[in-house]
């Protein structure tokens, strides 16, 4: 008990008596964590942007004008059962007209020319969303094989095909770049943090030598540095998440403007996930810091 208390005391004293070095060490860990976190957030952001773009894609299956409401509903149900389809919406001709009018309400010329026609020119349609944008081709092929084919006027998949492939290409490219950057950042962070800790232990070599000289046990020499590493990590994680939060709070208006119309809210995401991230980072960074300091102390304990 006395021993444990004393170990804490040493770690504590050491922290304050070498305040500058402690702060620099923490700063380095904070910067490392921040850069990793920024990148992780960027990853979350691209992910949600891509997903939200994907969500906005659908394929419209235009129905022939002689298709009955009943047939259309049956077709909708059939489509809903397709394993690759995530969402199906049947839009009647009247609804289609309404949507059209709503969409072009600032274009009175267009609307008035529409009014001149005595009947609704817009066909009924079924909007189909795939669970994965890659699967649209397959879904449409499958529909073509069913008896429902006779009701289909046309599909406008061709318009989306290029968009879908480019979204797919961008997605995988962005993911790869982010992953590469993340690995790079983590490696650089590890190097910087390890070296900072090494420098900090180097300034303690005298103390370690004296401890050995006067008969301190190995645990007594090492444990204060391990406590210190844990405290450093804890403080760093708190500071880095605090800073990230404040940063996001500051640029929230800009972010909102930038992602107008998309379902992207980093702040909300961080609020919902920070403790998981913090826990992981505390565990990993803590391990890294403990190993670094144990390794650095080793040089002076041996010999």
């Amino acid at each position: 008990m006395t021993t444990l208390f004393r170990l804490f005391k040493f770690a504590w004293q050491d922290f304050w008596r070498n305040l500058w070095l402690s702060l620099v060490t923490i700063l380095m860990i904070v910067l490392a964590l921040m850069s990793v976190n920024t990148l992780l957030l960027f990853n979350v952001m691209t992910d949600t942007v891509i997903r939200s773009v994907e969500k906005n894609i659908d394929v419209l299956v235009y129905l022939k004008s002689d298709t009955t409401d009943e047939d259309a509903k049956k077709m909708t149900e059939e489509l809903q059962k397709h394993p690759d389809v995530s969402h199906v919406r049947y839009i009647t001709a009247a609804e289609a007209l309404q949507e059209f009018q709503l969409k072009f309400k600032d274009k009175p010329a267009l609307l008035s020319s529409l009014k001149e026609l005595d009947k609704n020119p817009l066909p009924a349609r079924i909007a189909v969303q795939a669970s994965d944008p890659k699967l649209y081709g397959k879904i449409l092929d499958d529909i073509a094989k069913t008896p429902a084919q006779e009701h289909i006027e046309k599909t406008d998949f061709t318009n989306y095909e290029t968009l879908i492939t480019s979204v797919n290409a961008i997605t995988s490219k962005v993911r790869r770049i982010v992953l590469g950057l993340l690995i790079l950042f983590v490696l650089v962070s590890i190097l910087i943090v390890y070296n900072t800790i090494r420098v900090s232990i180097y300034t303690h070599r005298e103390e370690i030598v004296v401890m050995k000289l006067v008969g301190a046990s190995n645990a007594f020499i090492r444990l204060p540095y391990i406590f210190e590493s844990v405290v450093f990590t804890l403080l760093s994680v708190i500071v880095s998440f605090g800073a990230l939060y404040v940063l996001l709070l500051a640029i929230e208006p800009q972010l909102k403007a930038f992602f107008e119309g998309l379902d992207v809210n980093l702040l909300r995401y961080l609020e919902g996930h920070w403790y998981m991230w913090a826990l992981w980072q505390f565990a990993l960074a803590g391990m890294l810091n403990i190993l670094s300091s144990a390794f650095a102390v080793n040089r002076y304990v041996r010999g």
Partner: protein
Amino acid sequence: MERRLKPAPTDYRMCPLSSVVEQRNRKPHTSVRFWQGALAMAGGAVLLLVLMITFEKVSKIYPGNSVALQDLTLTIDAGEFVSIVGQSGVGKTTLVKLLIAEERASAGSIVVGGWDITHIRASEVPLLRRQIGVVFQDYKLLPKKSVWENVAFALEVSGAPRERIAAIVPQVIKIVGLEDKLHRYPRQLSGGEQQRVSIARALVHRPKVLVADEPTGNLDALNSQEIIELLKRINAFGTTIILVTHNRGVVNTLKKRVITMEGGTIAHDQKIGKYVL
């Protein structure tokens, strides 16, 4: 100005039994340890009388084929005051390092009070260090700790209870005559005073042996003389003193045993010696 060294309290070595034996018997896990322990215990009573240090044909070759000690054989009895002299590079510091197990011998054996420390395990080194106090030319004090803290540190890191620290630290600081400078930091002390702090620190475990490697190397004549007087007084309590020195005047006035080293081994060993170089 004269700095008087007050007579020390007589009880600074209160513990009656050899703590070499006590401490080593705390963890007799293996049978080897058990027999070592049993032997040491049996020898305990005898130990009190003859806490002997024996170097038997010891050689030390550093990496890079640098021969520091060669076939050195040496016996130091309990309570002796031995000076070790010799030119630079003859292996004096190496001898000290082997004795406190900072280095391991390349050949031969080293026994301290019945304990063969030739191949001592890293985990047992702390126990040895509490039996043998060491003092160096550069004091090795921690600059950010006060006199009291520097001395108490040695007990704290070996897990001594608070009451024991509170009892021993003032005693040893009194022995070296620094009781009115308890809260000074090393940079606020003269070289001689710093060396006295380091001696006080070396005494906290009530060691049977005190090794001083050129303790007066950085001090002027007056301060050197005071340190030597202090060592003599500690020796008078019964502590073996091993003094490595370059200081001709010190050796010649001591009129104690002098071992002269040359080329990693012993050239002369005189009961009442002189500095012969």
